[in-house]
């Protein structure tokens, strides 16, 4: 407690918030006590450091946003951009290459930032679409400074891993199968984080860039299998104007965010029949989040957002999930995998608050890294 009061006094002193009397008392104390003098010096340095940190972090964000806006407006195009219909493996190897560059610059610790990479969507007019995967700051975790390791870091992301992308996802089988967008998984490995903030390791089972659907499987002894999943997947086409809602993790602090809206068109961008157009407050990081109707039936997955028009987003139709599951049965690597999609919704008549309360435990934040 005393320490806190002292720290408060030092901050007040340094920021010039003390009255003349307080100030002269404090200065007398400082002269008399070398420990206090030392603390003032140390705190001055610390405040300068955190101010630099704040400046760089804020500018970094600003500059990334500027870059992304200009990119989306078509100011530049990447000459080496993958054009169309490429398998995700090739995308991964591209990112591996970038990772290889990320090595220490001189000092014992180096930090690299990377920003939101906007993929020009394959079969669409890319410049107008921005995929909603989260801008991830890439931090090289390089900790071994003469044996001093911060024991408060408890992440399951391996040391030296480079975070590539992130988004949202949801459970579709109690055994730990999660659906998300393929573009959320730009790295070659992934972890998922549940609504309580617990990290779990996951395997990338399948990712299809065409439909933008990916399947993850939680492989972690800390994972507690739920008995059942409260929502079901709607196979039929939904109605125009139907009310919808979503839960996702658009924010960096990993808090779950609820938004609602309505289905604004039965086809997506340029009449794409595989997607819906929806009116909802979707943000980067909402990519891969589920779209539910009022009966808590899953009708789609948020995928891309049209630039410039606030609130307009697109969702991959839920029927595509079923198609993907069917196609997995025919693939050599996945044919023995038994995935049972939830058959019934136990919360279809519940009030929204109760629905959200049940659903949130099945929503995951996804981080992909190399």
């Amino acid at each position, binding site marked *: 407690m005393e320490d806190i009061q002292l720290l408060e006094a030092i901050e007040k002193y340094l920021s010039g918030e003390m009255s003349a009397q307080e100030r002269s008392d404090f200065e007398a104390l400082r002269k008399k006590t070398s420990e206090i003098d030392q603390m003032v010096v140390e705190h001055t340095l610390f405040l300068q450091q955190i101010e630099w940190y704040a*400046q760089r972090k804020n500018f970094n964000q600003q500059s990334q946003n500027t870059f992304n806006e200009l990119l989306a407006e078509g100011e530049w195009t990447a000459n080496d951009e993958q054009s169309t219909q490429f398998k995700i493996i090739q995308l991964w190897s591209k990112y591996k290459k970038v990772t290889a560059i990320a090595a220490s610059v001189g*000092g*014992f610790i180096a930090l690299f*930032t990377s920003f939101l990479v906007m993929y020009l969507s394959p079969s669409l007019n890319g410049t107008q679409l921005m995929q909603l995967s989260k801008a991830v700051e890439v931090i090289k975790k390089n900790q071994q400074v003469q044996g001093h390791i911060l024991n408060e870091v408890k992440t399951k992301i391996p040391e030296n891993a480079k975070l590539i992308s992130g988004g949202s996802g949801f459970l579709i089988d109690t055994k730990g199968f999660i659906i998300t967008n393929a573009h959320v998984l730009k790295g070659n490995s992934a972890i998922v984080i549940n609504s309580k903030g617990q990290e779990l390791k996951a395997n990338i089972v399948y990712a299809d860039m065409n439909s933008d659907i990916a399947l993850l499987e939680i492989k972690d002894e800390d994972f507690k299998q739920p008995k059942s999943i409260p929502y079901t997947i709607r196979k039929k086409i939904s109605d125009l104007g139907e009310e919808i809602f979503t839960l996702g993790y658009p924010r960096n602090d990993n808090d779950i965010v609820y938004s609602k809206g309505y289905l604004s068109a039965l086809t997506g961008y340029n009449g794409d029949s595989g997607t819906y157009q929806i009116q909802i407050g979707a943000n980067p990081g909402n990519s891969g989040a589920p779209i539910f109707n009022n009966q808590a039936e899953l009708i789609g997955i948020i995928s891309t957002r049209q630039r410039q028009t606030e609130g307009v987003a697109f969702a991959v139709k839920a029927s595509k999930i079923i198609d993907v599951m069917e196609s997995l049965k025919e693939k050599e690597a996945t044919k023995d995998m038994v995935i049972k999609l939830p058959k019934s919704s136990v919360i279809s008549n519940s009030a929204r608050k109760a629905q959200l309360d049940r659903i949130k435990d099945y929503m995951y934040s996804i981080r992909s890294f190399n």
Partner: protein
Amino acid sequence: MSEIRINILKAELNEQVLLRGLAQNDSQAVEALYKSHFPVIQHFVENNNGSFDDARDIFQEAMIALYEKVQLDSFVLTCQIKTYLFSICKHLWLKRLQQMGKYSNPLSSEEESVSVQEDLEVMEKKDAAFAIMDRALNSLGEPCKSLLEGYYLNKKGMQELANQFGYTNADNAKNQKYKCLMRLKKLFFTQYNIGD
């Protein structure tokens, strides 16, 4: 004055305006800098074994270097912005190529460059300090991390933070802030002293 001389003066004035804008986080200045200078870097990196993403990363780092340089009281830029940004990018890219074992000398480019060795050293130190602060903040956990970020990064007042985090009053929030701050300082200085 000759017309040429006037045009040179105009260009210099324009650069000064841009740099002042950058120092104040003016979004138009940042955008103008990206628009006029990124293409050169993109061209350079893509012609020297790099990708679009590499160019973007390198350029972002150079922008940070310039931004932090214009913040200094002692700031003087002895060359054109274009030359400065290019010189930083060239060095950073060369370093990365070496780390990848892809080094091919000389890097092909017709751009003019100046010595930026001193600035790069300053930048490396700042990178290290930034990483330490970042890690310290990220290992604090919630609500400490968001509380301190709200106060020091987003410059929110104690009352606003009290409302946001559900503290009954600003004094409670302040108390919590100081508790968090003590932990952050401890984490930060464990690492920082070693590095210095």
